[in-house]
Each structure stands twice: as C-alpha cells, then as structure tokens.
C-alpha cells in the first residue's frame, strides 16, 4: 500500500529520490513495528518504550517531509514530556500490575476487534482511493519563502491562529489545576510562609536529648550500605544509627528467601534482637 503513496507522489510532485524512498521505508517500518510492539507487549513499561520508537520514527518522518519544526516538537514534546508522564503514571500504578484479562461483557473483545479492524480497513481504503484524486503539494515552496519553516509557523501562530494560540494557555492552566487538585494533598505540609526557621530548629535540637548528630552507619569490609548498623564500643548495635525507613519496612511482606543478606541486625546477637523487639 505504501508503494501507492510513493508512486502517486512520483506522478504529481516530481521525481522521488532514492534517499526519500529509503527513508520512507525504514521509518515507516520502524513506526509500524513500534505500534505493533506497543499493542502486544505484556509489560506496560515495554509498551511505553515501543511507543517511543513509533514517536521517534514519526518525528524523523516529519523532518524528512520538510516540516522540521513539527518533527522537533514531536520528539521534544511527545517522546520527551508526554512519554515521561506516561512512565510516571505507569510507575504510580505499579510496574508489576498487569491488565485484568477478565472480559466483563461477553464477546466484547471479539466485537471490538472486528469493528476496529473494519473501521481501519474502511479508512485506509478511503485514503488510498482519495490519493488518486489529491495533488500532493509539499512544503518546499512555502519553506523557501518568508524565512523558513519555523518562521512561517511563527507567522501563522501569531496572525491567523492567534486566538487558538492564546486559548491554549487556558488548557495549560486547567492541566496544572487538575494535576494539583487530583494529585496534591495539602494537608501534609505547612504553608510556605510558616516554614520552620533555622533558629527554631537549633533551639529544638539543643533543648532535646541529643545536641550532636546521629551516628552514621557502620562501614566494614563486608558491606558498606546504610542498612549496616554502627557498633558501640561494647560491640552492641547503636540503635540511633539504623535508618527509620528501613526499620519501618514491613519485613513480613518480603519473602524470607529473598531477604537482603547482610541486614540491619546481621551483626547483633540473636538474644539481643529478641530483646529489642
């Protein structure tokens, strides 16, 4: 089918160079592979990475199609920002979680597949048919005038599509408010103007039991992780040196076989461990 596009372009917009053909086939195949990979990858993160491949290929395709600005925007905004958002959301949902395979409506998947393929077939057929009647114009001529592609885009944004452009700021504001409303929990912080001052911190420290900093983790020849406790002169563990985060992790949740080898209590005698807990 792609040959239809190319040969049609030959007819109407002058000869197609070898370079263009090669670029088209390579990039087209790449984006198609990326799209299929995204659909069929089991892991959501892999899906997202396949999507990156598609987006990159499309971006280069735009550049080859003499729309360098669009190509760069595609790469910067989509493969950069949007993809990052995708991955953050995937991580938020949990890397391990996968789609539920239960079909809520019976036969829905089959029906959706058939209708989707039918729709795609219809659209592709219509486009192929219409290409015989459409004269490709290309951007070579407009790009040669008015200072190049980016300058022409700038001119259009600030004249013909000025209102649409200014209206996008409303979209951006809404997006920011939405992210704040749905994702930001205000209760957990003090307002910026009431932040504890350095002076208060110092006073709290000196009025407390421990003016000095907490002891650091023990560093021995066998391990240098922060999970390793410091030892007191009598060989017992200094409790202050243990990280709160590590201690508060629910150890029961972890499979005992997979527990990290030198853990926080590795150097403690068993009876002492029981005494602590």
């Amino acid at each position: 089918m792609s040959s239809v596009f190319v040969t049609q372009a030959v007819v109407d917009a002058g000869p197609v160079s070898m370079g263009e053909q090669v670029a088209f086939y390579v990039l087209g195949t790449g984006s198609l592979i990326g799209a299929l990979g995204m659909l069929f990858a089991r892991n959501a993160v892999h899906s997202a990475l396949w999507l990156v491949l598609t987006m990159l290929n499309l971006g280069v395709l735009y550049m080859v199609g003499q729309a360098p600005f669009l190509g760069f925007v595609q790469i910067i905004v989509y493969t950069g920002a949007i993809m990052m958002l995708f991955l953050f959301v995937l991580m938020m949902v949990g890397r391990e979680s996968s789609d539920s395979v239960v079909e809520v409506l019976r036969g829905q998947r089959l029906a959706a597949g058939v209708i989707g393929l039918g729709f795609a077939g219809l659209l592709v057929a219509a486009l192929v048919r219409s290409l015989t009647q459409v004269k490709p114009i290309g951007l070579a001529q407009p790009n040669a005038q008015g200072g190049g592609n980016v300058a022409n885009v700038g001119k259009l944004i600030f004249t013909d599509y000025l209102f649409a452009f200014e209206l996008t700021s409303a979209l951006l504001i809404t997006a920011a408010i939405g992210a704040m409303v749905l994702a930001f929990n205000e209760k957990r912080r003090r307002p910026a103007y009431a932040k504890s001052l350095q002076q208060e911190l110092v006073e709290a420290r000196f009025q407390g039991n421990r003016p000095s900093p907490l002891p650091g983790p023990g560093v021995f020849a066998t391990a240098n992780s922060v999970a390793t406790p410091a030892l007191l002169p009598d060989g017992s563990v200094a409790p202050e040196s243990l990280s709160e985060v590590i201690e508060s992790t629910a150890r029961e949740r972890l499979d005992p076989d997979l527990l990290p080898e030198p853990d926080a209590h590795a150097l403690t005698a068993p009876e002492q461990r029981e005494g602590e807990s």
Partner: protein
Amino acid sequence: MAWKEGIVLQPYLPLLLMFVLAAGFAVFSVTAAPYIGPRRYNRAKLDAYECGIEPSPQPVVGGGRMPVAYYLTAMLFILFDIEMVFLYPFAVKADDLGLFGLVEIVLFIVSVGFAYAYVWRRGGLDWN
C-alpha cells in the same frame, strides 16, 4: 520539485554521524571492558556504595509504586515544554512580529504564569 535530497537531509548529516559515533563508542566500551580490564572481585565491590541500601525484590517504600506527587512534576514539565514550543517560532519571527507579537507572547506567558503561581503558592513545588 518538492524534494531535493540536498535541501533536506544534508543539514542532519553531521547529527546522524554524531549519533553513530556516540552509539559506536557506547557499544564498544561496554563490550570491550570485560575483555581488556582486570577482573578481581570481592564482595564489597558488588555492594551498593555508602548511601545506598541492599536492593530487595520490592522497593522499600510503597510496594513498588511511585508517589503520586511525581505526576505533578511531569505535568509542570509538559506545561513549560509547550510554552517553549511556542516561544521558539516566536523568537525566530520576533523581528517581523514587532511590538504586537511581543504583547501576544507576554500575554501567553503571563497567563501560563497564573498556573505556575497557583502551584507555587499551594506548595506544589515543595518537596517533602
């Protein structure tokens, strides 16, 4: 003549060469290191270095999930990314657009700035 290879691809050729060089260097370094470097293992070498902790199958906090606050970061990044997308063509055409264009882009930046002010005052930029 819609297409001339010379017009379109040539400017990207150095870029492409750079990519190829970078990729080649990366692949070469990674594959060559095990063969030409000395190999002396001890246990501490495989440990996480000082600030790290022992990796476990599940990340320690939150059961393998990232806190939702990252979403805000990503959204703000997109915000400024889009703003930049509009700034670039403006900068290229700034001379011709003149005062009028300046007013328009300032209006745009200021209105996006409202969103920024909102996020800032509500503490969305504080990292706890």
